[in-house]
Structure formats: structure tokens, C-alpha cells
């Protein structure tokens, strides 16, 4: 009844303005609204974090390989081994004898 007092008292032709009490929600409902807003924000935050983390991970998509490719791979690895096994020594070791002879000269 009290809420309608102002509306009743307003002069004709003017729009009645609601009282201050009607604008503010009850403290209990305000808590739930805040809770809901934070909950939604939390969901968005978690979702965003999950998306970010998962997008940073390198995706491993194994190439489709057939037996022929596997054989070629084996051959190439074998060639790599052959190249690594090449005996490319430094030349210094060859000069030990000549250095000894030079000392005695």
C-alpha cells in the first residue's frame, strides 16, 4: 500500500515514479544474482583457460605410412649410419713421428 502512495499523489498527466524501495532488490536475491554472475564468469574463465592450454599443445598426427615408406626409412637411416661412421680424423696425430724426428735434428 505504501508503495503506491507516490503514484497516487502524483499530479495528473505525469508518469508516476517508483519509490526507492522498489528499485533495490532484497539482500538475499542480490546475493544469488552476484553468485550466478560469478559462476558464469568462472565457467567462462575455466573454459578459456582450457582452450588456451589445449591450443598450446602440439598435436601429433602420425603420417600415414605404408610398408614401402618404412623400407625407405630404414634404408635412409642405414645411409645416415654409414655417413656417421666415416673415419674423418684430425691430422695432428699424423705428425707425432715427424715432430720427434725434428727434435733430434
Amino acid at each position, binding site marked *: 500500500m505504501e508503495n503506491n502512495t507516490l503514484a497516487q499523489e502524483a499530479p495528473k498527466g505525469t508518469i508516476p515514479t517508483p519509490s526507492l524501495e522498489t528499485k533495490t532488490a532484497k539482500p538475499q536475491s542480490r546475493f544469488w544474482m552476484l553468485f550466478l554472475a560469478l559462476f558464469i564468469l568462472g565457467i567462462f574463465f575455466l573454459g578459456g583457460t582450457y582452450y588456451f592450454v589445449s591450443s598450446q599443445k602440439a598435436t601429433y598426427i602420425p603420417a600415414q605410412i605404408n610398408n614401402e615408406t618404412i623400407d625407405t626409412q630404414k634404408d*635412409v637411416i642405414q*645411409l645416415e649410419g654409414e*655417413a656417421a661412421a*666415416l*673415419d*674423418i680424423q684430425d*691430422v695432428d696425430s*699424423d705428425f707425432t713421428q*715427424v715432430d720427434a724426428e*725434428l727434435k733430434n735434428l
Partner: protein
Amino acid sequence: MIKEKITEKKDAIKERRETTQQERKEKLATYKKRLATFKDTVKAERVERISTIFQTINSKRTSIMSTNLERMRSIILKLEEKVAQLEKEGKDTTQAKQAIQEAKNGIETTRIVVQTQAEKEYTMTISSENTVKTDAATMRSALHTDLQTLHTTVVATRNQLSQAISETKILLGDTKHGE
């Protein structure tokens, strides 16, 4: 273009070989004549021995390098076959083929350089009996520098070969590469 350069280099080597042959003979004759005048025969023998060691080092080392280059050549040819096979399968072999070509050129050029080094003679220029030690040390240093430079070239060639192998591995979908 590269083949032309290699042919030019080969021709230049042939020309140089012919002109230096006479010089070598003269140098060897002077060396022997100087050595014969040595009062200390033991010293003369040692100089002779050192001179022989110089030649042995050069021929042994260049022989090892030639063998290695021959192996590299064999590997690169096999690799080329594999890449050609992959090209037939429809793979983009541009990078691998380029790396193989670079390695092949490197091997060919290094082979020529090694061949030239093998033909070099390290005959000492003896100034006098007293300074023969310095003469020998100078010759030792020259041989060491030449072989060291050649060794660096061979290592670089091997790296080119490794690069070609790596490119082929990428082509084969080796995901471990470059991690």
C-alpha cells in the same frame, strides 16, 4: 654451370701439373745435391727420413680422404635413388633434391682438391746444413696447414651429406627431426 666450373678446375689442375713437373725435378736435384754436401752424415740421414715421412703423411692422409669421399659419393647416389622413388610417389622433393645436388657438387669439388693435394711434393728447400732444422720445420708447417685446410673441407662436405640425409628424412615424415 657447376659442371663447367668443375671441368675448368680439372683443366687448370692438368695444366699446373705439367708445368710443375719440371720444377719438381729441378728442386729434387738441388735438394739431393745439398744433402750430399752435409758433413754430418747422421743429420743428412735424418733429413732424408723426415722428407720421406712428409711424403708418407701426405699420401696416407689424402688416400684416407679419397676413400671417405668415395663412400660419400656412394651414399649420395643411393640417397638420390630413394628421393627419385619418393618423387614418383608424388612427394614434394624440391628441398631434398637441392640438398643432394649441393652435396654432390661438394663431394666432386673436394675430390679434385684432394687429388691435387695428393700430387703435391714436400721436398725441402735446404739453405745450409746449419739451418736445415728450420727448413724442415717450415716444410712441416706447410704440410700441416695444407692437410688441416683439406680436413676442414672434407668435414664440410660430410656435413652437406648429412644435410641431404636430414632433408630426405623430413620427406619421409620423420617427426623426430628438428625437435
